């Protein structure tokens, strides 16, 4: 049916999108004015010229570059690891037959809804025993695999990878691992990309676990933000300059891969 939208639909959508952008703009606006302007009621609605000053002060107040590096290392490692192990296991669940496959898969599905918060106390005790509290290992190791990733890759490969391709590779004398490497992995690429993106974002934005295990001297971006706010002065030009800066990496990622994110969510590739 032809349902061409009119001004009304475009108007409402525009209003919604403005609402989506407004807080980010506000953050930049506050972060771009000097402190003196801000303390006098509401700032002008056009950006001021102090963004880099404020950003500089934020860099002085907290180890921001280190935080950025830490977040990149942790999120990148976790996302890559999750994708690799999930594709490996997902391929086996989708295309190979072996004893115990069904109960194992049921187990994976059953653990999907278990909240991670439930495990933080023992994880903390273990990390303390290993001497990892305060180091990035404490963030990376507990997140190396997710049940969701395995399930997601299995669902994708079930349809996307034709059995004939596997059979052909097997007839050619490929070992199963070689088959995985040359046939399954390329076929899994679109889903793997989406899983990587969402795992990266979820790790990057996590706050609870890093707050528990990381000290002020070795933070991720989110923990650095928290430090900006919890000092003796809450200087919002500084805090929101920091909030804006911390969002830029993900904004860049969003501009580059937003299409895939939208497609991923709409296909059910949703993990936050």
């Amino acid at each position, binding site marked *: 049916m032809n349902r061409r939208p009119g001004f009304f639909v475009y108007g409402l959508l525009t209003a919604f999108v403005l609402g*989506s952008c407004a*807080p980010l703009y506000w953050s930049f606006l506050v972060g771009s004015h000097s402190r003196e302007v801000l303390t006098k009621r*509401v700032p002008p609605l056009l950006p001021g010229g102090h963004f880099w000053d404020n950003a500089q002060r934020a860099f002085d107040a907290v180890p921001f570059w280190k935080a950025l590096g830490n977040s990149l290392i942790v999120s990148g490692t976790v996302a890559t690891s999750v994708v690799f192990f999930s594709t490996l*296991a997902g391929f086996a669940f989708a295309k190979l037959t072996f004893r115990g496959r069904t109960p194992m898969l049921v187990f994976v599905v059953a653990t999907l*809804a278990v909240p991670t*918060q439930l495990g933080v106390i023992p994880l903390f005790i273990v990390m303390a025993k290993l001497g990892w509290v305060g180091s990035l290992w404490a963030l990376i190791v507990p997140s190396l*695999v997710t*049940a969701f990733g395995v399930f997601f890759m299995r669902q994708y490969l079930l349809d996307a990878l034709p059995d004939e391709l596997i059979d052909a590779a097997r007839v050619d004398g490929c070992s199963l691992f070689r088959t995985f490497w040359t046939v399954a992995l390329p076929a899994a690429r679109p889903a793997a990309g989406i899983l990587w993106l969402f795992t990266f974002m979820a790790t990057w934005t996590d706050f609870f676990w890093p707050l528990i295990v990381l000290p002020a001297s070795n933070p991720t971006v989110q923990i650095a933000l928290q430090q900006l706010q919890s000092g003796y002065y809450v200087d919002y030009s500084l805090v*929101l300059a920091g909030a804006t800066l911390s969002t830029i990496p*993900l904004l860049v990622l969003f501009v580059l891969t937003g299409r895939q994110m939208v497609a991923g969510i709409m296909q059910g590739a949703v993990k936050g």
Partner: protein
Amino acid sequence: MLDAKVSPYLFVSPFFVLFLVVGMFPLGYTAWVSVHQWGLLSGQGDFTGLENYRRVLEDRYFWNALRNTISIFLLSSIPQVLIALALAGLLDTQLRARTLWRMSVLLPFVVAPAAVALIFGNVFGDRYGLANEVITWIGLEPIRWHVDTLASHVAIASMVNWRWTGYNALILLAAMQAVPRDVYESAALDGAGRIRQFTSITVPMIRPTVIFVIITSTIGGLQIFAEPRLFDTQGLGGSDRQYQTLTMYLWELGWRVRDLGMASAVAWLLFLIIVVFALVSLLVSRRAGTLKGHHRRSAPLKGARR
């Protein structure tokens, strides 16, 4: 032949080994810690049975946190689903530059909860915030966002809503697009307008997805932490803990009161609460599914978010 027999296990074993260590073992160990006296610094103490659970259930702040969590959850999920439905309906039209619109509504999703909390914390300043400036400009009394219980819940829920509405709209949009177009054509022939079509065809037909969105926002909403934690500079949920959530309560017990035994008891109680809420939603969705007959597309898959 050995390859075909052994390899599958080699493929799944890295996942299972790691998952058992970092995913399953902590669950069991939480139960073990919860039945002991266990200090953050002093470590394991005496076995105390269900004493920690009794102390948690007798603590008025546990019930306070439970109330706050449910209140914030209701304030965030109900408007969120309604607005997401409407938004998905708007997007489910023949828009020009449709990918751009879809990306635009997803924008808030890339802002981390910690940053969202700081931005909204500024907007909802009690005395010098933007929200109150607007409210007083209209001629109303300013609202004490950080003081009054309901107002603080509204402010925190608005952060959650802002970040997740567009995201949920895309899930609902996917379901809407699977609704066969000929249904609309016959409805249009019967003289049903667009709004009527939306409420009596679209919404009922994507009902399983709607309920799915509700379930996942339940699981996420009950674990809310960063937004209320960063809403003020002290992180305890206000002078009267008027916006302390269950996860904040867990954190306070574990890392402020330094009682890991009690905190573990809270973790298990939180888990039970989530299971109960999820089961209730599931039962409702089953019933709704059988009442409404077929749906062409099953709900998209999704892990616990947030």
